[in-house]
């Protein structure tokens, strides 16, 4: 049990902000904690931070492993203050929530087991993640939007591909 807790601690990475979020310092000033993005998200991906995040209480986060962002952009439509910049659904490539990073030590494909989960599920089809030699997944920083779907579908636990948040 302690081992699980320690493992969770070691694998902790900062959660994602919803798509279209302005840079973190400005975001904390602009966001009025109204919850409209959480209420608008059809996938229940957005959750509001609680007191453990100090002054960020009430601001929206996405925990990719729990439920990633599916880039529907409904949250950007309802944000009243522009903390989430308005984006259309066909502008998903403009999103910059973070960058995926593959841990090649634990990734199944790099260790002799054929797995294409992240490559197949990535919404920036065949551009953000490609397969070297048809086996080894590689993330391309210029295309990856950081939605977290890859982290969510990775069959490994802890996930071999994680999204490093662009916001802190």
């Amino acid at each position, binding site marked *: 049990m302690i081992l699980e807790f320690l493992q969770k601690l070691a694998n902790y990475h900062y959660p994602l902000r919803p798509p279209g979020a302005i840079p973190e310092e400005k975001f904390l000033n602009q966001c009025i904690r109204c919850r409209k993005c959480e209420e608008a998200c059809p996938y229940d991906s957005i959750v509001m931070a*609680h007191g*453990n995040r100090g002054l960020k*209480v009430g601001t929206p986060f996405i925990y990719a492993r729990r439920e990633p962002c599916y880039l529907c952009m409904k949250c950007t439509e309802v944000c009243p203050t522009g903390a989430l910049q308005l984006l259309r659904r066909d502008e998903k490539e403009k999103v910059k929530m973070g960058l995926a990073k593959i841990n090649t030590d634990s990734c199944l494909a790099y260790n002799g087991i054929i797995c294409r989960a992240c490559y197949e599920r990535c919404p920036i089809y065949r551009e953000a993640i490609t397969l070297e030699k048809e086996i080894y997944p590689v993330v391309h920083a210029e295309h990856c939007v950081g939605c977290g779907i890859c982290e969510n579908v990775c069959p490994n636990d802890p996930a071999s591909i994680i999204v490093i948040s662009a916001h802190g």
Partner: protein
Amino acid sequence: MSKYELYFYKHLHFLRRFTQWATIVFIFVVPFLNKHGYHQVTGTFYSLSIGQLDVLDPALMIQTLLLTKQISLSMLVAATFPVILALMFGRVFCSWICPYNLLAEYVAGVRKKFFPKKRYVLNHNPKPQWYWLVFGAIVTALMVLGIPLITLISFPGLISSQAADLILNRVVGVEIFLFLIVLLLEFLVAPHFWCKYACPVGATLALFQTKKTMRVRFDPKGCTCDSVKNLPCNFVCPLGLDPRRGDIYPYCYNCGACIHSCHAHHGKSLHFSFTADKKIVQSGINLKTNRPIKEVDV
């Protein structure tokens, strides 16, 4: 006073309670509907959307302007609805809608039962300077510290937000202790001090008090009371104000409890008025002799 006015004043308390409870239902129903795919109404008392109409708390608009040094047209438009309501009716949001006020009223009622002797009247009609001093301090702290302080202490926003949290995620956060602790203090020490002195949401609405804004008016000719203490109007005011005097603003939040009480005790001295009367009663009752002061021409 027309018969419609009299009817309204007779049922004022019921109408107000009904509106307050309807708001409580509202803040739970909206996230419930959102959860099940109906997004026509969404938001909290920080910012509400009804169809395409956005409503924004003007205090938060001021906060965003101060913190980010810019404002968008959509935010300005969204803030005009509460501002228009305040320009016309004063701080009725506080007394008729705000969920924190409803809780504070019940807490004050329980306090009266527990400590019937502790008739803590905060201060009959304090000077307006204190009110603006507190608001000014909050705004200054906001700018100096660079944190969204008004969002953190906006209790209507906080309560509606936690109601949404409860419905959507089946949890509440530790943030609820912010208003629970204030409620506890109101129970133990000074009832309704938050609404009366501190709340920045109400203070922003009070900025829009004009001569034509609806106000409680006292006419000594209609007063049928003889006693000096514990008059029906004084006793029932949740904010501890004396409505017989003209200086109840910006504290008074137009709940009309004094009016209802006066009429219930067969008086006719208090009413809501939209006009800046030429003849203004400076302070209607000489509080020593309890005799009405002659009306003063302005």
